[in-house]
């Protein structure tokens, strides 16, 4: 479907100013942000829907998404956290368009950026931007330093060690006997160990940083609690980075520091911030996908049996599970720095945009019958669960390798795996930035 056959939408109403933070932004952006209002939707005249919206079924998208995709694919919503307006983009084509557009910024300090946490202005002013919030050329400089760590070849070289880690944890599960909570027995420790070894973070400290990083994903935390978690993790990583500055090891942080001696693109705080992004991004997301993916397979025994019989289906199954859950739905927040047109709608400079990848990954025009899990789905790989554009998850291939290892090993070594709780008793992370399940009791 092309933009010119979509109905044209009126421009959002320009009303009184709301959310000017005035932090180091271009004048055009600041002025445009002053004209936003969260009152009503120009598309329908009704009060703006609230964002985030909840998934009513763990295997699907929030119900509102399908309606938006059909009737007003680029439309406005009010952020629950502060009532400010944002654009929601729901079609696959448009999500790719927005995330591939150099006229949108990821800088969370710009007025109009759609925050999903309450961050006090003084904290925002001080915060060092993570790579995912940087724009080119700063973003490109940092990403280029990290790309070699995550190439297809490097990830292939990591596979034997990943398999070993998975096997050790499955051994422990089998030795302990069921029922066990799969989240604590396997889903969390595997990616946590993998990223610790890659970064050179001592795994014996995992309990502490897992707690901090889980806190950083929680929508419902107070700004003080959120700030405390970030600060605690940064203090920990600050010491670690200092240690590696003096005694380099064979790890990602040390290699980054080594390259930085000639490239000189990052100061000490930048390195700590980079390490935090890699550590949090590297285990929380993968852990959630492990647990949700196993749950999905247990709830689709026919497809689970097919996978057991034919492990070559595994890579495709991983893509389909990534698509179905698209756990980091609203992680792709942007703010327009120039006026852009998306699906016939003009998004003004300074207006926030959430390019919803869970909505895109349930777009019927790309994924027929999108709510059905189909491990043989040909187009599954077109999903945007890792995002799209210059900020696409740098660890995507590592995540794929971990998911293949975990799902494949469980199916092979514990073929009788089954849920040890009633499905309706499971608690899902409706309150978090990254979707998941808190516990997954299993037995065999």
């Amino acid at each position, binding site marked *: 479907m092309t933009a010119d056959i979509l109905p044209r939408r009126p421009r959002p109403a320009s009303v009184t100013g709301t959310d000017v933070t005035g932090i180091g932004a271009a004048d055009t952006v600041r002025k445009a942000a002053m004209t936003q209002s969260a009152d009503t939707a120009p598309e329908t005249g009704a009060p703006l829907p609230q964002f985030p919206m909840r998934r009513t079924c763990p295997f699907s998208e929030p119900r509102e998404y399908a309606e938006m995709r059909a009737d007003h694919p680029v439309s406005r919503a009010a952020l629950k956290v502060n009532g400010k307006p944002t654009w929601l983009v729901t079609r696959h084509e448009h999500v790719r368009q927005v*995330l*591939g557009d150099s006229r949108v910024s990821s800088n969370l300090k710009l007025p109009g950026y759609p925050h999903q946490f309450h961050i006090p202005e003084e904290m925002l002013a001080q915060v060092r931007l993570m790579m995912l919030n940087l724009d080119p050329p700063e973003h490109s400089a940092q*990403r*280029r330093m990290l*790309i*070699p*760590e*995550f*190439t*297809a*070849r490097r*990830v292939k070289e990591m596979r034997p060690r990943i398999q070993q880690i998975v096997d050790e944890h499955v051994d422990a599960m089998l030795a302990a006997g069921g029922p066990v909570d799969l989240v604590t027995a396997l889903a969390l420790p595997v990616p946590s160990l993998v990223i610790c070894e890659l970064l050179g973070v001592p795994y014996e400290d995992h309990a502490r940083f897992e707690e901090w990083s889980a806190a950083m994903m929680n929508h419902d935390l107070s700004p003080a609690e959120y700030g405390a978690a970030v600060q605690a993790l940064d203090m920990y990583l600050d010491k670690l980075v200092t240690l590696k500055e003096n005694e380099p090891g064979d790890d990602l942080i040390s290699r980054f520091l080594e390259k930085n001696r000639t490239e000189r693109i990052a100061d000490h705080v930048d390195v700590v911030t980079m390490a935090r992004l890699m550590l949090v991004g590297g285990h929380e997301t993968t852990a959630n996908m492990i647990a949700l993916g196993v749950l999905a397979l247990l709830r689709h025994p026919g497809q689970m049996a097919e996978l057991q019989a034919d492990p070559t289906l595994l890579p495709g199954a991983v893509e389909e599970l990534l698509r179905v859950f698209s756990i980091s739905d609203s992680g792709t927040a942007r703010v327009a720095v120039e006026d852009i047109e998306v699906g016939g709608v003009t998004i003004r400079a300074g207006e926030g945009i959430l390019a919803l990848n869970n909505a895109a990954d349930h777009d019927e025009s790309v994924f027929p019958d999108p709510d059905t899990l189909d491990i043989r789905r040909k187009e599954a*790989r*077109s999903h945007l669960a890792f*995002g*799209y*554009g*210059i900020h*696409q998850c*740098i660890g*995507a*291939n590592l995540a794929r390798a971990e998911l293949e290892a975990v799902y494949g090993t469980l199916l092979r070594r514990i073929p009788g795996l089954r849920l040890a709780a009633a499905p309706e008793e499971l608690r899902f992370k409706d309150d978090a930035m990254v979707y998941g399940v808190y516990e997954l009791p299993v037995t065999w």
Partner: protein
Amino acid sequence: MRVTAERDRCVGSGQCALLSPEVFDQDDDGLVVVLREEPAEELRGEVFQAADLCPARSIRVHG
């Protein structure tokens, strides 16, 4: 069919190297390298998929 890639745009996702390893690779910097600029016709499907899935739109297929 002729394949080109803009290394300046590449963000190192490695999708091309995974999807079409005869045509694409990543060098030591992790950036795209076109191994065969005029790949065999039977690779058209995977080459197009690699171009379509490239998050940085750095791959062009001509003809």
